[in-house]
């Protein structure tokens, strides 16, 4: 499943590549590299160890049950349509996964933060953000997460995550963010 966000990122990369190509000076097209015949791989004797081996975590992995795990493997944000607070079909699998994860780690408490895009007035957007946060909260509660583990708040249009006055930025800023406030390591 692709999130809206990653689709937007991918398309942004695509645009950048296209733009770079357009800016590049005219050149003869390079021949496409042809895959060569595969070399038979021969087993070889291991040599003697040549230096110390230091342990370390790979960047980008996260321990199960951690905040990073929730963010990277579940996804902590879902997106909404313009002036709408119904959970979109494409957001439901992610919210179901959030509920499953929260049910697996019952000490975790979360705060659902409702957000709105900049194309609305301040107080209406606060009310709209509150509806979005509530839509996510009730989805999680319906999937078995105890209501007393969930707080909600609306940030209205005050805490955008995407910069810019365009549809892509607005689409990202219409969201509800499930923030882990306690009960899980980073």
């Amino acid at each position, binding site marked *: 499943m692709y999130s809206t966000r990653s689709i937007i990122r991918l398309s942004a990369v695509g645009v950048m590549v296209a733009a770079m190509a357009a800016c590049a000076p005219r050149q003869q097209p390079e021949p496409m590299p042809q895959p060569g015949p595969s070399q038979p791989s021969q087993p070889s004797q291991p040599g003697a160890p040549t230096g110390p081996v230091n342990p370390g975590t790979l960047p980008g992995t996260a321990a199960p049950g951690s905040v990073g795990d929730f963010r990277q493997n579940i996804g902590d944000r879902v997106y909404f349509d313009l002036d709408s607070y119904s959970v979109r079909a494409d957001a439901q699998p992610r919210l179901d996964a959030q509920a499953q994860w929260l049910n697996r780690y019952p000490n975790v408490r979360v705060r659902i933060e409702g957000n709105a895009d900049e194309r609305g007035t301040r*107080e*209406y957007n*606060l009310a709209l953000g509150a*509806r979005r*946060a*509530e839509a996510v909260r009730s989805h999680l509660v319906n999937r078995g997460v105890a209501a007393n583990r969930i707080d909600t708040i609306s940030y209205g249009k*005050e805490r955008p995550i*995407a910069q*810019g006055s365009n549809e892509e930025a607005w689409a990202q800023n219409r969201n509800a963010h499930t923030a882990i406030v306690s009960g899980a390591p980073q």
Partner: protein
Amino acid sequence: MRPNKRLNALIAGVAAIALAPAAVTPVMAQSGSPEVEITEGVLRPLQIAVAPFSGPNGADISGVISSNLQRSGFFDPIDPNAFIQQDLNLSNQPDFPQWTRIGAQAVLYGSATPQPDGRVQVGFRLYDPYRECQLVGFAFTATPDNWRRLAHKVSDVVYQRLTGEQGYFDTRVVFVSESGTGLNRFSRLAVMDQDGFNPFFLTSGEEIILTPRFSNNPNEIAYMALGEDYSRIYIMNLQTGRRESIGEFPGQVFAPRFSPDGTQIAFSISVGGNSDIHIMNLRTRQTRRLTNDPGIDTSPSFSPDGNQLVFVSDRSGSARLYTMRTDGSGQRPISRGGGAYTAPSWSPRGDLIAFTKQQGGRFHIGVMDASGGGERLLSSSYFEEGPSWAPNGRYIMFARQAPGGGSRLWTVDVTGRVVGQASYSGMAGDPAWSPLLDPPPANLGVGQASDSCPG
């Protein structure tokens, strides 16, 4: 920074006395009234000569007066380089032909005079050079560091005498100062004079500040502070800098508004995603719920008589304006057009309701009658919101934002004629206009007190 000491000084009282007409009594009345005609049609700005005031800060004072009058849209101050008579002083009346020759319909002159107690008295006279009579003569006294306030008070008297409407220059504006860019923004509560001078920060920037509003006391405001995990309504005293939360509620509070007498505060509480309007008695701290439906109900604004509220509701499916009595009864929609109506503000005159309207991919500031009829859009742009009335009910300040840009303060008058960026040029939103800092002097109208012009 310790802003409040300075604020105290600014708020300090300004004493007032009326001046009898200058030595020579007017000779002959000529025809034609110089007063500005306030109609909803074409404006003919009044040509006024504001002679440089004498004495300490005198020229600065007359400069502030001239800018105030010009910004109002009703006056066209004449370039002082065109003045023929250079020796006007408070003990004389103008040499009338020298002023009518340059087209002056009114002549204002005055003097700042240090007093034995260390204060300064600013006396001034306003003459009609065609009818050759004094329209008003008056003096205000204050400490010398209050010279801008003295200028605003003189401006108010001139405005009131020539337009017949209450002035609005001796006022301040509380607003949210914005800084940073893009995703790394922070906001601070700030207050300034209505002309953009003397800006002071009132908060330090740890919280997001939203929707400040004055009570009927120009030293008292309410606003909303939004933290990472809380939302509070504070009442702050601008003289002491003290602030107090109105309490903790089961839900998120926002959109605070004082009642016209300052004894109650209406606001929204969002519980389970449903925002409803409540009202709190600030003495007893008792809160009553006024709306009770699953729609969004927010942005309340009291009528000036305190009997009604206009508010936003989307109970019908889209955001519209509704009115109700302050006990919650009689809820009914008033806005009639398409588009989304939000952020209403009832005029201090009671006749109009200003609002923000979103329609056709643009945002508009408009006004309608209190019953919802006679809608007029005054200003339109990519984005604008949050109209706030000057205390005389003629001017509206609001925030306007260009695509990808910061928010700035703008002003429009009820006819849509005087649209301009407000004098404060920094990034700012959510302006709220104060009441007059103290009551205007009485008995300065036509045929009253110092007025020697025939009626």
